[in-house]
């Protein structure tokens, strides 16, 4: 089960390349997630992998850990070529991944989770005493005061992360992949994590580290690689580079290629958000959005910039009616929609293009055309029946308006590439004739060309008099595709920027923990 | 406070259940309905000679309901308290019910069992606990255990029906047989008895034999299908009345009433009504009420005198019901 079955590695010493991916490509449905990537990691070193959302980081990690299989290319672990059929095989070779979304059973205790699937046994029965002793030792090594018999569901996210790490250590990982390990951690917990990472590297473990917190990652990294649009575009020693180098390589091409002309005429206030609070759906005791105010005018594109967990998605979902608002008011053109249903909001012109198009945007069992007309189906009625010609006309017009590349409205939605699927979701919302257009990470995981198309679409809608509010975690998008940037941190708007006079560093600094003031819970927060 | 409320609720509920049981026991006998409301009071009378537990298959079937009701009524008449429960032909549930009867300190158990082999263990359990068991309607595959096994003579009754059927068919022509659930002993016994009589007449030809699982709807569908593929069918003989009535409905739907003869078995009230209406030829009456009453009387004898006067295996003859005596029918019995 553990690394003991493969060659124990006296041969492999710190600095040796122990994990190699050669010319790895991966195609999902229609999208090239990775294009010919050559990647390597050294024993006893931390390799940080940078890239914007959709650049292919997570895909690469999944391939390294045996979760996904590459379309082309090969993997070598400790000098042997491998083709992992499953994560279990990867674990047998000592390659362990800690996913961004934790893979724990919340109903089981800490000890049970650490030993899940390879329980210690004595005479066939689970040896609970031995498991408990081992779990306590692991947690002590991680300096985390966690009751090993507590159900994981009762722990804070940061503590759950530590449990994942304890599990990885107990697997005798020799290559440990950490996908966004700090996104849910407090500063103190990050300190502990870094100490643990240093301890592991000094024991010869190779660490592959992914984070959106660039400075944090640079601090711990020995080697740095940057992915962009599925390709590895730069690599260097961490000591030789700085934050600016990383950002430049992440963003890549000249931003002007990607972004359209802005500056539509600003009109009346269309969307007004007054003191809105939203409970965190995953953790109802906590507020994901706290007492937030904002306004968006007709013809204006406003960007909500923030890191993961800043509350962007929760805010947009609350505005769209998916999540309940626990305090405050949402007004569209002066009309109070705080308690309206999703359908009523769509009727009044407030609609959301969700972040996760597979989960929230598309019905996979329906065709391109049926997906597109779904939200506006009642506009094509003749009597009680759907008028097929009217519907077909609207769909056809929208397919060409939003430039979807498809064989026709009858094509299955799964036959489209990610970018074209996203355009279908946008087309669906546009068919409802919105006045306020909400978009959550509209360019996540799509090709560059489609990104440009989508920004052009947003600009065109603004010119047509819509109020556009979109969320992003990408600096380039925030600064180049909006008229105004609101920085969201811990559920509050902490700063407001004019993108024309703001640098990436300013924006990043404002969004980061260290730079922004910790808003006290009893104040009304640092609104812009 | 809340506890006393719960207690009161429970008491009410129990009373309700008792009242229900009392009502249904009234329905099965010839007593006027007014009597049944006082039955609950009678069962609770202190001079009663203890508890008799009556366990039968599901009361869905009027046959078992009549049987259970008759046993309860007889026992109460003799001054016993009673419980009446259904095991739904589930041996496990039967075993649980017998456990409850033992715990409740029953003086005797009247049982229409849930399987000839599967019931041996539970009966043994009751006997070990010192409770005499009186089996009715169905036997078990072991003797010397139960105090009595009183069953209708299925074979004799089926032979009676078959003879009547042969007579109505004028000893010649094609016929169909609908058999009961193939896992049920009585289905086999009746089918064999039918065959042993009918096979003596070479001009009677069995063109289709299908199981309809004792079920009316299934018998209806299968009969319709069989009538399609065998247009020359003159008669249908069914293993019980429910299936016979399904066949009658199919014959009517095909417009063949009077041309296709149907015969059943059990002597259910619906079948007797059909006989009176002329759509059903005959049925074999299983004297369920008589058997249940006999079992209770013998139980009373054992309880009061400590000894059984009858042999263990008792077979009660069935009676043929046809147009001639249908008027004298009472629920699973005949007036003399």
């Amino acid at each position, binding site marked *: 089960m553990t690394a003991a079955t493969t060659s124990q590695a006296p041969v492999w010493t710190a600095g040796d390349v122990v994990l190699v991916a050669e010319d790895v490509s991966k195609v999902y449905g*229609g999208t090239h997630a990775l294009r010919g990537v050559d990647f390597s990691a050294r024993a006893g070193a931390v390799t940080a992998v940078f890239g914007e959302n959709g650049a292919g980081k997570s895909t690469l990690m999944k391939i390294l850990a045996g979760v996904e299989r590459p379309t082309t290319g090969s993997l070598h672990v400790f000098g042997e070529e491998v083709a992992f059929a499953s994560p279990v095989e990867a674990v047998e070779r000592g390659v362990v991944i800690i996913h961004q979304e934790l893979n724990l059973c919340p109903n089981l205790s800490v000890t049970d989770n650490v030993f899940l699937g390879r329980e210690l046994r004595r005479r066939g029965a689970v040896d609970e005493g031995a498991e408990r002793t081992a779990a306590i030792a692991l947690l002590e090594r991680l300096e985390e005061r966690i009751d090993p018999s507590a159900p994981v569901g009762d722990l804070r996210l940061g503590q759950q992360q530590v449990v994942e790490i304890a599990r990885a250590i107990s697997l005798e990982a020799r290559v440990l992949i950490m996908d966004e390990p700090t996104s849910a951690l407090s500063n103190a917990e990050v300190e502990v994590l870094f100490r643990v990472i240093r301890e592991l590297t000094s024991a010869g473990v190779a660490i592959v580290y992914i984070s959106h917190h660039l400075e944090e990652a640079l601090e711990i990294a020995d080697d740095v690689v940057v992915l962009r649009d599925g390709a590895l575009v730069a690599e260097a020693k961490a000591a030789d580079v700085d934050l600016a180098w990383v950002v430049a390589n992440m963003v890549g091409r000249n931003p002007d290629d990607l972004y359209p002309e802005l500056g539509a005429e600003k009109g009346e206030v269309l969307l007004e958000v007054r003191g809105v609070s939203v409970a965190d759906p995953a953790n109802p005791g906590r507020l994901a959005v706290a007492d937030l105010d904002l306004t968006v005018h007709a013809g204006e594109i406003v960007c909500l910039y923030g890191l993961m967990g800043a509350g962007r998605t929760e805010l947009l979902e609350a505005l769209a009616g998916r999540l309940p608002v626990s305090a405050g008011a949402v007004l569209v053109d002066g009309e109070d929609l705080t308690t309206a*249903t999703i359908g009523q909001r769509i009727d009044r012109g407030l609609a959301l293009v969700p972040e996760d198009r597979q989960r*929230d945007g598309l019905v996979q069992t329906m065709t391109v055309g049926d997906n597109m007309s779904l939200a506006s189906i009642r506009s094509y009625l003749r009597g009680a029946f759907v008028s097929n010609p009217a519907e077909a006309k609207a769909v056809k017009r929208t397919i060409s308006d939003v430039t979807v590349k498809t064989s026709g409205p009858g094509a299955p939605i799964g036959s*489209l590439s990610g970018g074209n699927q996203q355009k279908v979701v946008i087309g669906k919302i546009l068919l409802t004739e919105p006045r306020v257009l909400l978009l959550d990470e509209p360019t996540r995981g799509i090709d560059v060309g489609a990104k440009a198309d989508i920004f052009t679409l947003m600009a065109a809608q603004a010119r047509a008099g819509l109020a556009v509010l979109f969320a992003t975690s990408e600096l380039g998008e925030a600064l180049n595709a909006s008229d105004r940037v609101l920085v969201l941190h811990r559920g509050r708007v902490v700063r407001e920027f004019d993108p024309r006079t703001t640098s*990436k560093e300013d924006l990043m600094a404002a969004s980061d923990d260290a730079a922004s003031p910790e808003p006290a819970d009893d104040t009304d927060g640092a609104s812009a | 406070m809340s506890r006393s409320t719960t207690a009161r609720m429970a008491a009410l509920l129990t009373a309700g259940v008792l009242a229900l049981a009392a009502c249904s026991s009234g329905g099965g006998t010839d007593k006027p309905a007014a009597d049944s409301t006082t039955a609950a009071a009678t069962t609770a009378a202190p001079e009663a000679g203890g508890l008799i537990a009556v366990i039968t298959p599901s*009361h869905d079937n009027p046959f078992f309901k009549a049987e259970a009701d008759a046993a309860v009524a007889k026992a109460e008449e003799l001054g016993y308290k009673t419980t009446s429960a259904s095991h739904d032909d589930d041996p496990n549930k039967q075993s649980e019910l017998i456990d409850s009867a033992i715990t409740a300190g029953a003086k005797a158990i009247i049982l229409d069992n849930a399987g000839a082999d599967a019931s041996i263990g539970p009966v043994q359990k009751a006997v070990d606990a010192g409770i005499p068991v009186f089996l009715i309607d169905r036997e078990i595959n072991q003797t010397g255990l139960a105090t009595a096994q009183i069953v209708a003579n299925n074979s004799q009754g089926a032979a009676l029906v078959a003879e009547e059927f042969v007579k109505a068919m004028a000893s010649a022509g094609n016929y169909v047989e609908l058999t009961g659930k193939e896992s049920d002993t009585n289905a086999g016994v009746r089918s064999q008895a039918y065959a042993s009589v009918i096979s003596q007449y070479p001009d009677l030809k069995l063109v289709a034999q299908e199981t309809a699982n004792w079920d*009316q709807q299934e018998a209806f569908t299968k009969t319709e299908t069989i009538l399609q*593929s065998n247009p020359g069918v003159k008669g249908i003989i069914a293993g019980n009345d429910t299936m016979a009535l399904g066949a009658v409905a199919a014959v009517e739907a095909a417009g063949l009433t009077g041309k296709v003869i149907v015969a059943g078995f059990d002597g259910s009230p619906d079948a007797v009504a059909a006989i009176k209406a002329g759509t059903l030829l005959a049925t074999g009456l299983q004297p369920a009420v008589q058997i249940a009453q006999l079992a209770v009387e013998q139980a009373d004898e054992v309880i009061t005198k400590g000894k059984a006067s009858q042999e263990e295996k008792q077979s009660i003859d069935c009676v043929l019901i046809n147009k001639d005596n249908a008027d004298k029918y009472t629920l699973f019995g005949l007036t003399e």
Partner: protein
Amino acid sequence: MNPVPQPAERPAWSLRLGDALLELRAFIALAVIVVIFASLSDTFLTGSNMITMTRHVAVNAILALGMLLVILTGGIDLSVGSIVGLSGIVAGVLLQGWEIPSFNVILYPQVWAVVVVSLVVGTVVGAINGVLITRFKVAPFIATLGMLYVARGTALLISNGATFPRLGGAPELGNTGFRWLGTGRVIGVPVSIWIMVVFAVAIWVLIRKMPFGRWLYATGGNERAASLSGVPVRTVTLRVYMISGLCAAMVGLIIASELTSAAPQTGETFELNAIAAVVIGGASLAGGRGTVRGALVGAFVIGFLSDGLVMVGVSTFWQVVIKGAVIVLAVMLDQGQQRLKRSRAAAAAAATVRHDGPPSRTSTPVAA
């Protein structure tokens, strides 16, 4: 004959033929069944036998139509068999005279009123299922499993376990005519077949021509996406269970009318036949996929198969085995078709991006 041979067309054409064969697999299964039984039995293909078998099919087909809607939302309705029994019993009580002890009267409602009341009862039971599922978030399997027992128990309670015989009504009470549902004919075709046709057409219109249908498919395909598109997911789900209850109640009436008697245990395990018909017809239990045509063909496959086996005289035990095997086979074929479709879609998508090159490794970093 064709002067311009087009060799490149051929593989595409044969692929499409393969597709069509799979698409029509339920029809093909039905055709195979008809051919086999027609060769084994002279009477199988006669008009009157076809009508009889279709009448038998109608019962399951009407249930399957209601079940189809439920399955399209990704749910399941295990209570339909019990609703069949309950609806029959309600009709039985009313036709035999509904005693109201407190007023000391016996009501003999008109037949149409009896039919309406029974259908309403079925619909209400379906609505209870729907409320449990949408309001109280009980999983459909559990909610309808519970209702399977509750509805059956209610039927037994109402009837006190007895069968209501002789539902023909009496002329002096003005409640004759109930038999027409099960035994009447219109233009030579039995009423129950007409009812099946009416239900099939109504449900086809509902799900192909009305917004409700689109909402239904979307709810089953992706509930989250549907609700974010403004689809009233809860209402759709509630309605679907009500329609299923209505269909079951209709079946209960047809059976009670055919037998002119109502037994509380009527309809046991009918839900399984209905689910099988829907699944044979190509619906996905995960929701979002399935057609009226498929459900009907599925019901015909099951009905013709069981009637055919009886006509040919196959032993009862083999009948059960064969039926089970056909269900599994049909679903296996369906899985094959889905895999084929998916790989085809992936190939098509891959073709559209093949020309996008990777970004250049040597691209100049933007000024930091």
